[in-house]
């Protein structure tokens, strides 16, 4: 006979209102015919209600995993298992979805079936890093659930001090702004690092994220150690007829206000005949005017990627945004992809060799200085890496001539 539904007067208040309610979902699971999962979720509801009452959490970590991998399961043991025994264990399996979270219904249904059989039936689509999170598994079911999910063609995501599950924006699949193939880039890189995902042995976590343009729909800027953005080097593409149509639609004053005036570098001017005067040298590829005039403007044709390194959240020294380390790189041919992979490995090798324990890439760069980081990686200096040169004269310049010579040589070689 199955367990009684706990009283959840506080949680019940989350069933009112128009937004879909996870409480209703949990109750559906609790009432489901699968007695094991049902009891587990009833118990979970009891513990969660207790948290709402006391305003405290009751989970602790531990060690649970699957055979062959060192990460990917987030173990949760209840501190109030005496009161809520069926949810004493409530582990999460992190599973990597296809880039940009594409599914056919068949796969989704298959996942549901597995998770109904071996887990609680609760699935988060998706975690903030990008995992399918199968939540609520007892220790004894973890391997079973995993075996089936893995057999379906899905692999385990990251956790701990290793490479983490990645995320890419929808990119070329359905976005006209995409300046490179975010989906393929993510798959290529992450597939190459599966070992570092599954057997974490880095100083600390490391995340890649992929956004097809400066709009950064994957939140790569501050939420990934290695952030890859699409951009272009040549002139943006302008359809002057569509510009005129846009001016007509918004009115002159408003077009000036919304487009001309909002360009961060004053790269745009409106001609007296209502065509657009684009100063491409001043344009910083911010996407704004293109966003406003989706029909009239597009990124240029010489597209590629920019890599920014070091983004992360606040721990220890304060939030960091990724800063530019590779201003431009083509990403079209197989060789381009190989070059990117080679670079990604250099990033991670340097991180593995030089970061302190629990130090993220951005913190390491802050500690050693960007110039040393570049030197360590053998990456060429580029002016797009800085927003401005140093403003402080406290610097030792013995090596100036030698460094200046290096630059000039590079310039000459590039010109040849």
């Amino acid at each position, binding site marked *: 006979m199955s367990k009684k539904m706990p009283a959840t007067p506080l*949680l019940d208040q*989350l069933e009112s*209102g*128009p*937004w*879909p309610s996870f409480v209703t*979902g*949990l109750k559906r699971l609790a009432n489901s015919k699968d007695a094991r999962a049902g009891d587990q979720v009833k118990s979970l509801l009891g513990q969660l209600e207790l948290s709402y009452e006391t*305003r*405290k*959490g009751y989970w*602790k970590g531990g060690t649970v995993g*699957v*055979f*062959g991998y060192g990460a990917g399961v*987030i173990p*949760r043991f209840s501190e109030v298992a005496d009161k809520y025994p069926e949810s004493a264990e*409530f582990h*999460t399996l992190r599973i*990597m979805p*296809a880039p*940009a979270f*594409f599914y056919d*219904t*068949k796969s*989704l*249904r298959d996942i*549901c079936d597995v998770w109904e059989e071996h887990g609680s039936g609760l699935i*988060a*689509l*998706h975690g*903030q890093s990008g995992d399918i999170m199968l*939540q609520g598994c007892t220790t004894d079911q973890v*391997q079973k659930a995993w*075996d089936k999910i*893995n*057999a379906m063609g899905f*692999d*385990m995501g990251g956790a701990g001090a290793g490479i983490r599950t*990645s995320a890419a924006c929808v990119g*070329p*699949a359905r976005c006209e702004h995409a300046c490179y193939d975010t*989906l393929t880039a993510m*798959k290529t890189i992450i597939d190459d690092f*599966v070992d570092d995902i599954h057997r974490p042995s880095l100083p600390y976590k490391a995340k890649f994220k992929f956004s097809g343009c*400066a709009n*950064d*729909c994957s*939140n790569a*800027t*501050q*939420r990934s150690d290695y952030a890859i953005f699409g951009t272009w080097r040549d002139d943006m593409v302008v359809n002057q007829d569509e510009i005129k149509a846009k001016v007509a639609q918004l009115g002159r004053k408003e077009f000036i206000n919304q487009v001309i005036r909002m*360009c*961060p570098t004053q790269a745009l001017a409106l001609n007296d005949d209502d065509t657009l005067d684009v100063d491409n040298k001043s344009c*910083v590829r*911010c*996407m704004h005017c293109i*966003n406003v005039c989706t029909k009239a403007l597009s990124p240029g044709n010489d597209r590629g990627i920019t890599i920014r390194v070091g983004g992360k*959240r606040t*721990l220890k020294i304060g939030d960091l945004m990724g800063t530019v380390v590779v201003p431009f790189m083509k990403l079209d041919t197989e060789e381009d992809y190989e070059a990117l992979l080679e670079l990604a490995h250099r990033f991670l090798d340097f991180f593995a060799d030089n970061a302190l324990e629990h130090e993220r890439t951005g913190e390491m760069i802050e500690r050693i200085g960007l110039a040393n980081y570049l030197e360590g990686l053998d990456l060429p200096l580029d002016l797009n890496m800085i927003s401005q040169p140093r403003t402080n004269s406290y610097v030792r310049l013995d090596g100036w001539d030698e460094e200046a010579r290096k630059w000039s040589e590079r310039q000459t070689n590039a010109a040849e």
Partner: protein
Amino acid sequence: MSELRRPIESGVPDSKNFMHPMLVKNYGQWAWHDRPQPGVLRHVAKNGDTIYTVKAGSQRQLDVFAIREICDIADEFCEGYIRFTVRSSMEFMTTDETKVAPLIKRLEAAGYPVGGTGNSVGLISHTQGWLHCDIPGTDASGVVKALMDELFHEFKHEEMPNRVKITTSCCQINCGGQGDIAINVQHTKPPVINHDLVSMICERPTVVARCPVAAIRPAVVNGKPTLEVDEKKCVCCGACYPPCPPMQINDPINSKIAIWVGGKHSSTRSKPAFHKLVVAGLPNNAPRWPEVAEVVKQILAAYKQDARPWERMNEWIGRIGWPRFFEMTGLPFTKYHIDNWRGGRSNLNASTHLHF
């Protein structure tokens, strides 16, 4: 227990296996898009092919029954394909314009609000909270649900100046990241140490190293090695708690909620920006956090009323100035708003740019 099986290290699945055929066909060939109505995107390829996307909210923490119903809808309208966004919204795509209206009807009948596109308030980023994390100061699913109920209209309509990205985080670690509005736990008292447990279960040097202000030092209590906290230095960040749970930072009263605004990842127009503290000290008032909802709505109302088209929260405040933002929202300005972290001087007004 079944026999142990070597994992198939297959990595990341290939999206093209899960993509609507129209997307596969026009991969990389999209020309432009617009939004025929809130919740609906129309993307047109260079060859004229068109696909409609209907975007709907979800509770993220989905039960298999909900997912199956979603699949039913995708089977009925979208040839069996569906995608999720980075914010856990759902996208239903069809090439058939006539299917858009019935699809919306079907979704809303099933309880999934259609919206979240363009200049609306999108789905709030969702973290773990009391449901699953080991260190949460509050819940996540409940906070998101309670707030989305309040912001329902703004999700379904495109009435904001630009997209609004709200994030929540159930502890100061802030897995929800930067947001136009970020609703984060902020502890206000130093951790209370359970000395018996420290000596038993904590790797002490690790904990000491984790403190951003070097407030933790080794100590001996009752003859056992433990830790102590210099309460004058401690900034109550809770960073010592994950590696050492006996450093109890969570507290039903003193773990408060703070609201930050103006975070931005995009480099669109302005450079990316961190979110900035506007209110702290809000009670952690489960199950519906009315005080938090109130402030969020105040901020959104001011933004909606005053910002210009395309201005993100941060850009709007930059233009009208922080004085006016505080005035419009009626929030208190305190000495805590003055940044005193490393490099905080750059947040002082080193100019004669003034807003009156």
